[in-house]
């Protein structure tokens, strides 16, 4: 999720300047996100080390010209693992947000278009999903489908769908009653066409705001699942996994790995939550 993607609808909706809405703190957050994305994309250009290969002789080294941030318990370069780990962490969260947004929008449009029985049915399904705590749903999915980034990403996306669907449903219902939708319906356009061509673009700002807010949560939850050993599997580099793998080293007095990876997560999540908060005009923790 880049700043550019968020920019268009926000400008179109309010007609105001995006920079004004973000404010200095929001712009700083956008810069941080851009920097992390760039670092993840250009990882091979920034470091020549392979994140998965290390030499045991070089374990637990401090920062040096060769290893700018030192090495981990297997002698792997920490900077390289952080940079490549950013790829896993960002990509995973992006897919969660994308799938949850798409699923939520689909349910919202279907519920809003058909109304009555279908709307009630969608409501019941969402209620049922709400009965499970997010993390539990993801853990159960791992039990069924096995561990791995792909599995937990889909699992988490399903866990997020009720939240996005609930918000989008109310917005879509409001649009459904407006004149332009009824005019299109009277012209004989099909529900599919009206929903996709007319309603969807008008609820796009809410979809994107929700995505920005959920991105931070998705990063934390994915990292937590990797920390539990249910998500990304070694030797793949991932921030959550690095905190977990660094735990044993930390108890022996080598705190670098856990601390560096943890700080990366904190900075990225904080940046995303600031952007989401500014775009949506909502408070932190406004998802539920």
């Amino acid at each position: 999720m880049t700043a550019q993607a968020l920019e268009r609808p926000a400008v179109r909706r309010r007609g105001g300047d995006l920079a004004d809405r973000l404010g200095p703190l929001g712009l700083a957050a956008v810069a941080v996100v851009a920097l992390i994305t760039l670092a993840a994309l250009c990882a091979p250009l920034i470091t020549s080390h392979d994140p998965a290969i290390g030499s045991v002789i070089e374990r637990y080294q401090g920062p040096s010209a060769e290893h700018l941030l030192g090495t981990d318990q297997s002698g792997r370069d920490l900077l390289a693992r952080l940079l490549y780990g950013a790829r896993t962490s960002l990509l995973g969260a992006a897919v969660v947000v994308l799938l949850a947004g798409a699923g939520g929008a689909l349910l919202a449009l279907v519920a809003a278009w058909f109304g009555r029985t279908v709307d009630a049915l969608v409501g019941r399904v969402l209620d049922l999903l709400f009965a499970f705590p997010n993390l539990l749903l993801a853990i159960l999915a791992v039990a069924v489908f096995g561990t791995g980034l792909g599995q937990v990403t889909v699992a988490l996306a399903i866990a997020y769908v009720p939240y996005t669907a609930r918000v989008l449903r109310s917005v879509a219902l409001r649009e459904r009653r407006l004149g332009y939708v009824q005019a299109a319906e009277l012209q004989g356009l099909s529900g599919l066409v009206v929903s996709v061509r007319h309603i969807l673009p008008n609820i796009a700002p809410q979809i994107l705001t929700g995505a920005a807010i959920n991105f931070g949560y998705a990063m934390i939850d994915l990292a937590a699942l990797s920390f539990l050993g249910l998500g990304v599997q070694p030797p793949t580099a991932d921030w959550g996994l690095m905190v977990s793998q660094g735990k044993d080293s930390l108890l022996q007095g080598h705190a670098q790995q856990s601390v560096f990876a943890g700080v990366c997560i904190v900075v990225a999540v904080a940046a995303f939550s600031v952007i989401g908060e500014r775009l949506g005009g909502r408070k932190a923790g406004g998802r539920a």
Partner: protein
Amino acid sequence: MLRFVLRRLGALAATLLISSFLVFSAMYAAPGTPESFLVQGRTVSPEVLASIRAQYGLDDPFLIRYWNWLGGVLTGDLGESLTTRQDVASLLASRIPTTLWLTLYAAVLIVVFGVLAGALAGLRGGAFDTGVLLGSSVGFAVPTFFAAVLLMSVFSVTLGWFPVFGSGSGFAGRIEHLTLPAVALALPAAAVVARITRTAVVEEREAEHVSVALARGVPWRVVARRHILRNAMLPVTTIVGVNIAALVAGAAVVEHAFTLDGVGAMLINSVQQKDFAVVQAVALLLVAVFGVVNLVIDILYAVIDPRVQLGGESA
């Protein structure tokens, strides 16, 4: 009121019934057969396999197996663990105290520190307010597992103030062992609660009825307590409730980090070992607790705000 509670309890029972079916069929649909987990990769003769299948009732049709399992659950028989052969109900019972203490401890921390910091920041303003704002922004972004690792590093390894592992026994022992885990678990939620409380208090402080009360000469302390805090507590109750309910599942991460013998850690272990009998039982328990906590919050909400109509269509 009673009707509302009864209806919600009925809805909760229905939800649990459907959830149990979903969880059971999800485990049923999982790749790999149950007996392959039971024999754990050893090569066994077809006769042994057949006897195992018969022992666990694996040859029965799906619905019969679900029905038998559900009947067992309702009579307190949760089956036996596929890996350790122990009774799941007694396994679960031995794990509940740790998780209960941990979540209660964290809930107290969330309420005390989150609400207190937010309310003081909103009422006082100034440097304290800025501090709370900054602290809550950072605290909110710190994942529980990272907080756990950091706390362990500083207070257990470096300073040696708290034990690194174990969940302790007796009241004092539990408090000592569970302080760091509870702080880690409570931190992000307390940050959110502090932020919401602050916003609610500030909004209320700037409301007209507060200016009027002050202009009429009502003392600030009384205005703060009766006019500002009382009104501001409504959104706070909601957000505190949501966050406490979420502890039910969040505890798993902290228990894993501190290697505590709680229900959440048991869930993670049994997922990794594909011990579906345990996974089913824990999942059902967590959904039930989650539902009950949410119900209690809704009732509390009505007690605090008499305007809330119980038994309405939205309830």
